[in-house]
């Protein structure tokens, strides 16, 4: 039987010597959408940064395997090229860098890793147009500077655009629903749903149930104090919405 797409075993992570994740284990199968919920400060964003390979987060114990490969030694760019995508909670603004130029470089990096030919600007245009249509993003944004001056919602939409374009095998979306109005949430959810496939895995990190009404998860995990304290199916999210995170502590 094939190993799950994402296997995290006994992961402990420090930031500047402060333990944030403590003996965390998690499995996500191919084709699975896993939601990770939890209160503020529980370590949700830390998990996404660790998966991205952020240098400020030190893995002090445990392993992370994606598609059977231990990613501990991989640089952030190697992880991305191997098909790991992190949609950040706060996408950074990069003034002066054209959005379309950046997107093309990112796609070419991924294509090179897949032994596909790189695309020049003309060859890239139809890929970008299709992806922008899928996330209902105005074409004007391709000529804007990367995230610079974007509203919070447009930044999140730009993250989903990148996910759609790069076609990763594992996508981790960190609070992609925060800061979105109802219409933007619907569009982003549509983008996520079209991304779902039996070959891919998706980890949705969120505080709220509202995204999970539009992107129905196969599993729900609750992260608290740096560990997974509860796991269940989609009904767990509804229970958390009704009872709050305190309920888990009191169990």
């Amino acid at each position, binding site marked *: 039987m094939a190993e799950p797409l994402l296997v995290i075993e006994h992961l402990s992570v420090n930031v500047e010597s402060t333990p944030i994740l403590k003996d965390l284990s998690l499995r996500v199968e191919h084709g699975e959408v896993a939601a990770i919920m939890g209160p503020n400060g529980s370590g949700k964003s830390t998990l996404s940064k660790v998966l991205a390979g952020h240098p400020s987060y030190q893995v002090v114990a445990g392993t992370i395997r994606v598609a059977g490969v231990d990613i501990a030694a991989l640089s952030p*760019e190697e992880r991305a090229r191997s098909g790991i995508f992190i949609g*950040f909670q706060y996408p950074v603004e*990069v003034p*002066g*860098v*054209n959005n379309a130029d*950046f997107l093309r*470089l990112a796609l070419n990096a991924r294509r090179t890793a897949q032994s596909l030919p*790189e695309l020049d600007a003309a060859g890239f245009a139809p890929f970008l147009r299709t992806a922008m249509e899928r996330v209902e993003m105005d074409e004007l944004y391709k000529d804007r500077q990367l995230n610079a001056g974007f509203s919070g919602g447009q930044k999140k939409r730009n993250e989903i655009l*990148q996910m759609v374009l790069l076609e990763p095998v594992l996508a981790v979306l960190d609070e992609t629903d925060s800061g979105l109005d109802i219409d933007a949430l619907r569009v982003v959810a549509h983008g996520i749903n079209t991304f779902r496939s039996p070959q891919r895995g998706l980890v949705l990190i969120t505080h709220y149930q509202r995204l999970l009404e539009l992107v129905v998860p196969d599993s729900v995990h609750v992260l608290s104090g740096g560990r997974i304290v509860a796991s269940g199916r989609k009904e767990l999210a509804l229970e958390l919405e009704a009872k709050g995170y305190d309920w888990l502590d009191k169990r």
Partner: protein
Amino acid sequence: MPQLAGSPAPTSWSAARAALSVVARERARALGLPTTALEDWRYVALTALSRLQAAAPRAVSRDEIIPWTVPGTTSVVLVDGQLRAELSDPLPAGAPLILCEPGQLPEAQASALLRRWSDRLAGETDISACWALADGERGLAVQVQGAVVQPLHLISITSGGVCAATVTITMQANASVTVILTHVPLAPSRCSLALDLELAAGAQATVDELQVAPGSDTAQLFTVVRSQLGRDSRLRWTSVHRGCALGRSRLEALLGAPGASVELAALSLLRATSQWHDLTRIAHAVGPSTSQQLYKTIADDAALGSFDGLVSIRPGADLSEARQRHQSLLLSPKARIDSRPQLDIAADDVTASHGSSIGQLSADELFYLQSRGLPVAQARALLLGGFVQDIARRLSPPGQALLARHDLLPQHPAPATA
């Protein structure tokens, strides 16, 4: 009639010019060599001044100039500060333009120029202007009488030795021109050039000037630019420098009539032990007038750069607007950048701002690009390209072509396989 003159200057000019050179040398002697105790030289590593081991000036062939020519421009070549008509392009037929050595100007204009230089020398405080006026006896005078369509490309070649050049650009009312001034120290690049550029823009005249210095580890370059702007005239100045053993630019602009405006943008890309220092002095004598300055410095290795800018808004220059910004990136712990933006406001009703920032490439931005698959080197190149974008997009197409051909800007975007 367009003119690129080759006839010798009259004897009367030669004698008067030689006398001016004597005055300039005396003034330079009186000022003495600069030291960092002088405010205007405080950031310059002046030890390089005594290290120049100049090579002997040598003959320059057309083949050595061709790589620096740009299609669609009129190349005007100066070698070691002297106009070389035989190496230059003929002026386009019908161009409302006169180009010649200063001594070949009509007598009244030549005399006026000498008087102006003489007056300047009496109060000159910048020694590099004295050097230029002392030894730049056969420079270039440009008179623009209307709209010049094809950009002028002044290619200033330095073959060796300690050289000087004077360039005067006189714009008649409603005239317009694009000028590219490229400094090329030819191998072995052991040379020094002091250049004095005077620009007088009549009413509603427009000048778009790009100064390019491709960089050299051994050459020295000192430029002094003094511009006077008339009613509703506009100077748009862009500089791109790669630094040299010792490089300094002093740029003065006098906004002397209502509606005058000056836009300055400069980019210094410094590596190894090169240095470049920008000093600007902008005077709003009357209002409304506008000045905008955007200076950017990137210093790597042990390079040294500085920006020292002063905007003076004089009494009565109400409704003037002045913006001054200096942004820098330090790419190495041994690199150094100094920044001193200053405002001196003596009018009541003005809009003025200034600011400076010195930092490193953002670790968050680098990580974000890496997290999308870009290798560190490519991510850095992309960020550097982004940093210079607002200056790069000011460039005219010939300016872009020149910089691209000689790889003078960070690549943007960098190739995916970098």
